[in-house]
């Protein structure tokens, strides 16, 4: 109880409460950012009352219109163009032929085993990676939230992998997974488990005396997912920590007074309130997973064969290595639709709640 009362305030919280002083008549609501909605509406109302809308639009457009047009051209213009390109049979040389558009690339995709394999890998990566990151992030956030000493040090180190590029982490993990002298296999050897792991995980047709994490179809994707969890669970931790700190201490006290144990308190009272944090963290994590191109591209390096293709890497390979630009564009559209499936509902609900 006292520990919770003495909870350290993060710089972010201080900042937020400091700038919220103009809304001090409104009691901070813990549940789902209701305060901010109220503040936002209030501001819109006061300004709207003081000035005509047309004037505001005219006056504000020099600030937002050029950047929005620039980003809009690169984002939406490019996506539309990509959609058109996916209907051509452009091979990357000269001008694409826009006169005959058809869905032949999508037909080719439907009968392409590599595409379905990449889709399956993408979905597995998306689900497994996100769930484990959330679980690990939540656990670590709760542990860090126990008013521990050296909190900053722990937080800094847990978040460190996120500051590294995919290429750097892939380089490090290619060493960790190295078959001959990598960290994992050396650990297995210490505990005399190598034989067991080989029997369990070795693909049927392979003859091996060491575990080849990155070149076995049975382990390659799992190895990728594990390393990605290492890199991004810190992100989930940061988001959950912010969520935990937004829960009023009274909720902890009430649960204590009711005689709930720590585990019960978290399961019944605290974790259910982290829904918003979990949703936003999982959306961003899924977007990371869909973008994991850099990681897999670098990790694979010179070790072909193992099946760790996701749609993002397949798209690059097809478009820029095999110069089938139209086919690559078609795969990119599928990837984009997948991303839309993840972010569309999220953005819509944020919009409805007035969070944007």
């Amino acid at each position, binding site marked *: 109880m006292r520990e919770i009362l003495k909870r350290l305030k993060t710089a972010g919280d201080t900042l937020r409460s400091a700038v919220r002083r103009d809304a001090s008549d409104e009691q901070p609501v813990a549940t789902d950012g209701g305060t901010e909605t109220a503040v936002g509406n209030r501001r819109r109302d006061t300004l*709207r009352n003081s000035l005509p809308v047309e004037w505001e639009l005219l006056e504000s457009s020099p600030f937002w219109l050029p*950047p929005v047009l620039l980003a809009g051209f690169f984002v939406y213009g490019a996506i539309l163009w990509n959609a058109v390109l996916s209907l051509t049979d452009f091979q990357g040389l000269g001008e694409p032929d826009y006169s005959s558009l058809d869905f032949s690339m999508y037909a080719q995709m439907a009968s392409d085993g590599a595409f379905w394999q990449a889709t399956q890998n993408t979905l597995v990566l998306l689900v497994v990676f996100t769930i484990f990151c959330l679980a690990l992030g939540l656990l670590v956030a709760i542990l860090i939230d126990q008013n521990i000493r050296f909190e900053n040090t722990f937080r800094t180190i847990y978040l460190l992998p996120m500051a590294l590029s995919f290429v750097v982490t892939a380089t490090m993990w290619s060493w960790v997974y190295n078959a001959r002298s990598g960290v994992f296999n050396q650990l297995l050897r210490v505990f005399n488990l190598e034989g067991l792991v080989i029997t369990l995980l070795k693909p049927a047709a392979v003859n091996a005396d060491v575990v080849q994490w990155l070149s076995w179809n049975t382990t390659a994707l799992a190895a990728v997912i594990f390393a990605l969890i290492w890199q991004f669970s810190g992100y989930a931790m940061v988001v959950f920590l912010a969520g935990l700190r937004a829960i009023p201490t009274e909720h902890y006290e009430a649960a204590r007074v009711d005689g709930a144990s720590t585990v019960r308190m978290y399961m019944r009272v605290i974790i259910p309130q982290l829904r918003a944090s979990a949703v936003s963290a999982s959306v961003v994590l899924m977007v990371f997973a869909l973008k994991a191109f850099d990681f897999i591209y670098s990790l694979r390096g010179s070790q072909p064969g193992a099946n760790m293709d996701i749609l993002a890497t397949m798209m690059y390979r097809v478009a820029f290595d095999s110069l089938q630009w139209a086919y690559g564009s078609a795969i990119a559209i599928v990837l984009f639709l997948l991303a839309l499936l993840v972010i569309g509902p999220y953005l819509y609900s944020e919009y409805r709640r007035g969070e944007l």
Partner: protein
Amino acid sequence: MSTESRDPIAKLREMETSRIGLYAVLLFGLVFYLFPVETAVMTMFKTQDAFIRTVPFAPPNADGFTLEALMTAWNTLRPGLINSMFMAIPATLLSALLGSLTAYGLTTLSWRGQVGVVVFIIAGIFIPYQAVLVPLAQFWYQILPDLLNGFVNTVFGFITGGNWTYPSRNGYLQLLQLSVTHAAYGIPICTLLFRSYYQSISDEMIEAARLDGATAFSIYKNIILPLSLPMFAVTLIYQFTQVYNDLLFALVLVNDPASQVATQRLAALTGGVVQSFNTTMAGAIVAALPTLLVYIFFGEQFAKGVAGET
């Protein structure tokens, strides 16, 4: 189950064991998050012979210590590091400035429908870049040169007889293209970061300035910009790491070996047929150095950028 009637000493003791357990788990976490970095650092100081013979975690023994791998990696990556800075710093500054302007225009000056524009631009954060890659390459390889050619030919055609050709793309032009690309794709996230910050700036101040006859630009220059400096720190730090760390755009836009950025050079080092792990690990550390330093000195701001909060 804790009950009121329990002996307070026993309760305290129980608490202490659970505290020890807590710290043990947290320390295990430290090991989990640090071991790939630690083994990379140890490996980069080992000779080829020593890294095969010693345990990955262990420091090199006396005769197995070498700086040669580090020097090789440094020499391989140095041009890439310079190119990365040349590309990332302008891109970061530009996207932060544009994001700040956008957020100002879409927050402080309110009009109906602006949330629609906000959603339009924020959605740009989440798109997989593969979805824009082919058009992007087409745009920089063909469309823009053609446009420039056409423009220059129209304007100067009568002098040169229409035979002026756009100079061939050289390395630095590719880096410039990469920089502009990153700046453009950075606008959405920078806008989001600045917007949530601007939403919490008090209206009274701005309304007072308006009543005194301040223009939108002078409000931005005199009130908003000075107030945004902490947010600029967050955004610049976060955005710099994002741009510096990118590989995908660089792979597509930069094909001149002399202008490859650090991530490209490291990927080439990693993907090489003959792997000497001491050199590749040294390469990883060297390539990570700029963002590592940023992270060590500005970790708090980086974390705020990551969490997308203010």
